[in-house]
């Protein structure tokens, strides 16, 4: 993910399961996983819905 503020590649350092939203790839978790990314250059924080988890086997995500 690229920082919207400065264009630097951001670091994905956390996931948060949002129980207030559902569907998509993370229905098996009962919510929607959101990724938290931080920019190493300016400290900007961005959140996006996790991608690539649609085909993940149960238990394959970091616990």
């Amino acid at each position, binding site marked *: 993910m690229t920082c919207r503020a400065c264009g630097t590649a951001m*670091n*994905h*350092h*956390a*996931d*948060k399961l949002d129980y207030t939203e559902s569907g998509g790839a993370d229905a098996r978790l009962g919510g929607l996983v959101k*990724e*938290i990314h*931080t*920019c*190493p*250059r300016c*400290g*900007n*924080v*961005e*959140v996006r819905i996790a991608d690539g988890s649609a085909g993940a086997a149960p238990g394959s*995500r*970091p616990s």
Partner: protein
Amino acid sequence: MSESRPLFIPVILGTARKGRFSEAVARFVLEQVRKRATIETTLVDIREIRLSIDDAGEALKDQGFSALVMRADALILVVPEYNHGYPGLLKHVLDTNLKEYIHKAVGICGVSASGFGGARVIQNLLPVMRELGLVTIFWDGNFSNVQSLFDANGAIKDVSYIGRIDKFLAELVWMAEVLRHGRENVSLEGTS
């Protein structure tokens, strides 16, 4: 690159009540933070954050407070103990953000009129901090008998607090440095 940037650690005064003794504590803590050249800080008075009580989500946010927390590497909460709990207004303010807190350090200074130094409000805040994504340290500020702790000029009478807050800040700075490095450089396992 991050190592060249000063840490930004605001002090949040967690009560809006008239006559609050916690203000003297917050100003004392702010003064101690300012002694450290590698830290930028400011005082955040929740009395000055005007939030709606009947809105939700992004509409509820105070943009200035959100931007400040986004910039912060750590937070210091100065919190009085009201009926063994934390002020509801502080909780309301904190609940308006989430992503801005994640994997950032927090230190808590409890304030009480009793001799327990706000220990109960600190304990009650810990699960809230965790759910917000903040990382607590294992030093606290415990300000007891606050009604007689400061003189008329706001100077602290018991100088042992200076040494204790210095230790508190040392731990907080360490955690803030580590977490900033992690946020910016260490990815979750299996991700890139």
